[in-house]
């Protein structure tokens, strides 16, 4: 028998023997709705039809529909299997990964990197990186909303909601032109209160595949200066959007040129095929070194209460790939192959029309 007392459910009966207990503590827990993306895979796996095809989750497959492991990853696996890795080395490897990730996103010779103003923490892939930032935002800007493009990756809504950061949308996709609704986007940027937090996909917008042009990015950046908005970039596809790592980070580089202090979530899931290892990075560009150190300490604390430290295996793989010139060169090549293969499947860069239900999306 349940009673809602003082803001919580409690049982009004006294102790019941195990055999007589009809209701448990979890009666009031309803089944969660299926995740719109992973739910597709679950349904696919349950389907016994031999002709089934899974076009749900954005995970790269080869021509036979099999998951692909990059050769550079296999090389890295072999390398690290030979050596004994121990928990005592974790911190050093983690820092190295952050350094390499930041160079990848901000540019190897970016002056902000040299000035050590970019602080970063390894994260549980893109999701984890976004969540760390959302928690940081709530902690230091309580009540400030996040502006998400309409549409965006469905999990963005979950992440900021669970971090208890209110959400607003800004117009992005025009279903009639199947392109960017740039005028509306700029309108929404101008109308948002000064100093708002905005999330952008710097390349290969998920789910539409529609990205601003270079000129458009420059205009957005300029308007951000006027409005003092905070630009947060969720970069999940660096390298596989155009095949060129620097090109795919162009939006970020434009904002950096213009002097913005940005935040950036990076994921190595798609561009290294490391889906199951959960490797990513959250970085925040600060005004000075002292601030970078302070922000890092806060991020570490947020991470400590969520999972203490990130898993090392994936970090080791990414670190090995990025630090070894030969393996890194191989990776740069393989990333182009992924991109070309994806383009050859479809004539248009994305599929997002009224044909398809919202739950079934292809990302390219």
């Amino acid at each position: 028998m349940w009673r809602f007392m003082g803001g919580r459910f409690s049982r009004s009966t006294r102790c019941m023997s195990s055999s007589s207990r009809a209701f448990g503590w979890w009666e009031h827990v309803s089944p969660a709705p299926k995740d719109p993306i992973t739910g597709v895979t679950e349904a696919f796996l349950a389907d016994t039809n031999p002709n089934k095809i899974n076009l749900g989750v954005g995970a790269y497959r080869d021509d036979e529909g099999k998951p692909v492991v990059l050769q550079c990853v296999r090389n890295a696996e072999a390398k690290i299997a030979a050596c004994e890795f121990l928990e005592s080395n974790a911190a050093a490897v983690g820092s190295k990964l952050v350094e390499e990730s930041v160079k990848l996103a901000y540019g190897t010779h970016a002056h902000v990197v040299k000035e050590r103003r970019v602080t970063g923490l390894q994260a549980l892939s893109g999701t984890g990186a976004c969540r760390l930032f959302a928690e940081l935002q709530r902690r230091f800007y309580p009540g400030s909303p996040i502006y998400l493009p309409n549409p965006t990756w469905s999990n963005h809504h979950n992440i900021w909601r669970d971090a208890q950061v209110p959400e607003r949308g800004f117009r992005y996709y025009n279903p009639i032109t199947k392109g960017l609704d740039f005028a509306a986007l700029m309108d929404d940027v101008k109308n948002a209160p000064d100093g708002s937090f905005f999330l952008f996909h710097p390349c290969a917008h998920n789910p539409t595949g529609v990205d601003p042009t270079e000129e458009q990015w420059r205009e957005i950046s300029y308007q951000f200066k006027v409005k003092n908005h905070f630009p947060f970039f969720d970069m999940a596809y660096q390298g596989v959007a155009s095949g060129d790592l620097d090109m795919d980070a162009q939006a970020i580089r434009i904002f950096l040129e213009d002097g913005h202090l940005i935040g950036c979530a990076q994921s190595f899931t798609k561009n290294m095929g490391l889906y199951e290892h959960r490797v990513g990075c959250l970085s925040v560009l600060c005004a000075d070194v002292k601030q970078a150190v302070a922000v890092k300490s806060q991020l570490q604390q947020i991470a400590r209460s969520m999972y203490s430290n990130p898993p090392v295996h994936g970090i080791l793989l990414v670190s090995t790939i990025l630090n070894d010139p030969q393996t890194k060169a191989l990776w740069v090549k393989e990333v182009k192959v992924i991109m070309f293969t994806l383009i050859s499947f479809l004539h248009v860069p994305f599929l997002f029309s009224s044909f398809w239900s919202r739950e079934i999306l292809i990302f390219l």
Partner: protein
Amino acid sequence: MASAMLSLASACPSASLSAHENLKVKLKPGSASLSFNKEKSNLFINTKSSGRISMVAVVNASRFEGVTMAPPDPILGVSEAFKADTHESKLNLGVGAYRTEELQPYVLNVVKKAENLMVERGENKEYLPIEGLAAFNKVTAELLFGADNPVIKQQRVATVQGLSGTGSLRLAAALIERYFPGAKVLISSPTWGNHKNIFNDARVPWSEYRYYDPKTVGLDFEGMLADIKAAPEGSFVLLHGCAHNPTGIDPTPEQWEKIADVIQEKNHIAFFDVAYQGFASGSLDGDAASVRLFAARGMEILVAQSYSKNLGLYAERIGAINVVCSSADAAARVKSQLKRLARPMYSNPPIHGARIVANVVGDPSLFNEWKAEMEMMAGRIKNVRQKLYDYLSAKDKSGKDWSFILKQIGMFSFTGLNKTQTENMTNKWRVYMTKDGRISLAGLSLAKCEYLADAIVDSFHNVS
């Protein structure tokens, strides 16, 4: 706002003059950290100039100006201080990470074997489902409850792979916050330092129940029962399944029965943190006795597990949250909601550690090998306890009873040293430990027992 002005100058020296003028007009020095939110638009330089050149010249002051330095973690901070120390005699008894007699980190042989198997098989790297590796979830629940346990056979356990103990606890905390808003978690005094952080960040209120009795260096059992009884009905009681951290003091089987009685009486929910299964006594089943006792009574419980210590998989972050429910239907629903909480935290968990556990526990010969390695590790700690006790008894002429060292269980020992005495341990003897008086015996070798005994005796008797 001096720092903002400095970064302006460095960003574009040629335009610094105009930027500086802007700065003087727009900024309110000194107000930055106090009312950051409200005065955002005044703090940042508002350039209305239309040319791109002058825009490039200006760097916004940071959003995170008001971010203060977080305090160093009390446990991990010890290792950092130890690393910085250059004395030869230094001893790290801080973090609970197992070390060999040579004080080296230890990768279990079964783990190496499992990893080799995995490399040979060349498995793919696809996303795991949100709840984790199915093979892992199966074996982890069986390890905890016993494969023949009714709760398993009746499918009443919702098991979700988590990021070691911390991640599993956090999922449970998030579940509590969502479905039992306002319900409190009772935690032992003292408890593992990160418990409070986890519940704080999950916004779950907590309070403490008496646990450690400094007078006896034992369990304050009456205090514990009284505090659990006094808590509002329907509270969650966080219990360490075995090898209490940091004290090493566990309830006896009879005491566990009484704790279960009180919890049932008050309609509380038992919430076990099992981080040392196998490590406490050397027996995997033995160390799960408390959890199994509660499950056998038909109680609905939560259990967080970690494989950091017992499989040495610290860095891989592998664990699980188990929720034992009164019905299979409830378990399915709870599992779905745990998934919904995990998705916005990390989408799906990392696979490597899960595969290792599944391979080790799922393969009979590897499993037996693991049991043997575990007995070896637990055995080494028992030997170290004995040696330390022997030296303490021999060297301490005061007649103080040091037998609590032998009675305590697991990696840790609560020495009873206070903060000042602990500081003496570090400053004079270069023995690094946490300020609450906890030492990690996993970091102690037989060879160093005598040295440690000298340090403890000195700190205890000559420092107040």
